[in-house]
């Protein structure tokens, strides 16, 4: 019975984890380029339940007899980023870019000890920084297909669907749009950035870059609210189970073996 209480408690913990992720998805409903996360959970590694006696009451030949598998509860096994694309929103700003196909913009996000570190993003809210380079809203420089910053010339900039940047009809540079085979293995870093440690990326040859558009988050509030309800009800069911176990324990303590 104590075992049941702990198994239920771990299940309630998983529902809390689901709720944390759902609420984070909803908080980022309006963040351009945001990708929703989802929780996957599985039973803890199972144990073999054994009995010392056989059903007919004799001792088991090896000293024990297998009854069946038993699990001690549930645990979160992964939080996965859903790489599905969001719908595009027209903004008509010259340096708002969206990728209609697969792939990520590459951005130089320096970290301590690694000034050249590259992170990836789908949020194309770009602008010129004070040095004239193309930069994200957090101020990090966007990279070209050979992974160096893009210096924008003065005046009107146009970006082709293939990611080629031109000014006044002359080709200036081309954006890095990197595709990964295992995009859902990417690690969320905050600020719209993802890290891709150990993942092999390659330049997308036709990424369908749309100028004057931004990609909305791929969060569907209907799905999130529905998931929120199921998580809440599962959590409530956990409460009832723990209370039932508590009652059973109460009976064992107070009623079993009493003489009236």
């Amino acid at each position, binding site marked *: 019975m104590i075992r049941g209480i702990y198994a239920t408690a771990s299940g309630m913990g998983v529902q809390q984890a689901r709720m944390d992720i759902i609420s984070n998805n909803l908080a980022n409903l309006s963040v351009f380029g945001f990708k929703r996360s989802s929780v996957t959970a599985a039973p803890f590694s199972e144990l073999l339940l054994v009995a010392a006696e056989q059903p007919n009451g004799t001792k088991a030949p090896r000293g024990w007899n297998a009854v069946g598998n038993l699990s001690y509860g549930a645990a979160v*096994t992964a*939080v996965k980023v859903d790489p599905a694309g969001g719908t595009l929103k027209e903004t008509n700003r010259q340096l708002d870019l969206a990728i209609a196909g697969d792939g990520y913009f590459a951005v130089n996000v320096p970290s301590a000890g690694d000034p050249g570190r590259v992170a990836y993003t789908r949020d194309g809210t770009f602008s010129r920084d004070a040095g004239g380079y193309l930069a994200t809203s957090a101020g990090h420089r966007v990279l070209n297909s050979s992974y160096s910053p893009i210096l924008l010339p003065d005046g009107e900039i146009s970006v082709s669907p293939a990611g080629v940047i031109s000014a006044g009809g002359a080709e200036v540079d081309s954006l890095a749009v990197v595709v990964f085979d295992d995009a859902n293995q990417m690690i969320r870093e905050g600020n*719209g950035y993802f890290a891709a440690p150990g993942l092999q990326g390659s330049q997308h040859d036709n990424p369908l870059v749309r100028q004057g558009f931004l990609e909305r988050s791929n969060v569907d509030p209907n799905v999130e609210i529905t998931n929120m309800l199921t998580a809440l009800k599962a959590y409530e069911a956990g409460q009832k189970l723990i209370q039932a176990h508590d009652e059973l324990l109460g009976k064992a303590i107070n009623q079993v073996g009493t003489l009236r």
Partner: protein
Amino acid sequence: MIRTLWNGASGAAGHQARLDAAANNLANINTTGYKKQRVVFADLLTREMETSGRPVNLLPGSTARQGGGTAVVATCRGWEQGNVLETGRPLDLMIEGEGFFRLEKTGEEELYTRDGNFFLDAEGRLVNSAGYVLLDNLELTGAPDSLAISPNGLVTARDAGGELIELGQLTLCRFISPGNLEAAGENMFRPTTGSGAPVELVPGGEGAGMVRQGLLELSNVDTVEEMTGMIEAQRSYQFNLRSVRAADEMWGITNNLRR
């Protein structure tokens, strides 16, 4: 549950900021030279779920990172050209294209504006409604009606005898990254390290716009865009309050575990 609560709160606060920006844009729909504001969000720092007390048993090669809600990273301006309002007033100026008027005031920092609604002060200088002076060295003598400013910024007027005199040259300032200018109130902006230093240019040269006299630039606020944005922000705000309520309900369930 605390995480759920704060995620919901941060989402609600972020959408509140969007509503504020939309309300501000709508309030300034008739402000000349006003540029619409927009709020840029990003998701907040993430951490590993193992450290938050949840039961976690990772599959090989997977991660369990949870986000910390959302935050406003920047409010930036849309610098698109606003609509034209014809006033016929000789002291109304409009910049067609890029650039800002540079304004000065004794004892104050230099500020920059797109709002070309000027007046004459007692000393014959062009000032805006906040008392900032355009072209410090210009002193208008003679009739203000005779003031003429060419598209290239040459300021001329007729003196008492009807003679055409050259009063000065109006210049415009450009910034490499106008999105990083800081609002200084009264429709004026101040440069920051992010915007770069002002580059002074003759109107019509090197990417600077032309000066048009007798016209004003209206705000570039689009009512339909603001209204749809407002509806979206308000609904998103409600969704995030559902997260807060769910956290509250879960807390109630936990509190009633022991009857």
